[in-house]
């Protein structure tokens, strides 16, 4: 990947990531997040990881962000979010972030990364398909169960269920005041 293209997308990713945390309106943060995710997708494609890049665009930008948007709408946002956190907490967060940066730098410099030559189709859709439908078949099928759990789970939690039908029973057993 030419340095110029990398620099462009990397800078844009960092700027939009800052936008995510600096915006006051959560919806604006979300829009900035979309830009961040697309930049990361572009960077991945630049590294010849075409499949991962495309999936990033489809799943994250296409679906996850939509979900975030609905969650934001679902929560009541009538008031402006207040300035949160005291100075002490902010200081602590800054120290924590600095520690993380230092740690990652230390790891990256200390660890020897082995270099391997890979085939030209490495990271392609076809190769991905070979893995999903080959060695990782079980993981693929279990994913469908996980998705089913999501469907059933969301119905169980969000749908209004009729009250207990048995008249001779108390409306809720464990809802009794337990002081």
């Amino acid at each position: 990947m030419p340095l110029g293209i990398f620099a462009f997308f990397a800078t844009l990713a960092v700027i939009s990531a800052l936008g995510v945390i600096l915006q006051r309106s959560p919806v604006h943060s979300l829009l900035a997040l979309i830009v961040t995710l697309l930049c990361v997708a572009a960077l991945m494609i630049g590294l010849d990881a075409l499949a991962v890049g495309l999936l990033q665009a489809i799943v994250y930008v296409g679906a996850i962000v939509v979900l975030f948007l609905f969650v934001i709408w679902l929560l009541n946002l009538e008031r402006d979010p207040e300035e949160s956190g005291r100075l002490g907490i902010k200081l602590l967060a800054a120290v924590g972030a600095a520690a993380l940066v230092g740690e990652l730098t230390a790891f990256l410099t200390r660890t020897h990364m082995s270099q391997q030559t890979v085939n030209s189709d490495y990271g392609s859709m076809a190769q991905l398909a070979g893995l999903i439908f080959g060695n990782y078949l079980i993981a693929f099928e279990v994913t469908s169960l996980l998705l089913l759990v999501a469907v059933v789970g969301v119905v169980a939690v969000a749908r209004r269920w009729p009250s207990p039908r048995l008249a001779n029973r108390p409306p809720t057993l464990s809802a009794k005041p337990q002081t």
Partner: protein
Amino acid sequence: MTTWFPVALMTAFAALVVGLMVTINAIVGPRSRDPVKGEAFECGNPPSGSAWRRFSVHFYLTAILFLVFDVEVVFLYPWAVTIRQLGATGLVEAGIFIVLMLAGLIYALRRGMLDWS
């Protein structure tokens, strides 16, 4: 990587055009700002209530359903591009996945997740 050069060029060109249009508009376009212009347009009536209010949970149900089937598509994409190489094995493997997702769809329909009445 070089195969992506046209795409990059296209992206850059699109960004340039959009940037130019927005910038030129901002510089030369007429501007008048007053409270009435800033109001949300509600068919001519004065807007009532706040735009920041809670949405029905039903949107969320739909979004989850969308997410689930979006992820399904993601998994079927690799299968689609290699359908010939994978052959019958791939058909069985993807078939199990599709049937399970279909069961989820039937369940969702029966539970009225797509019912907006």
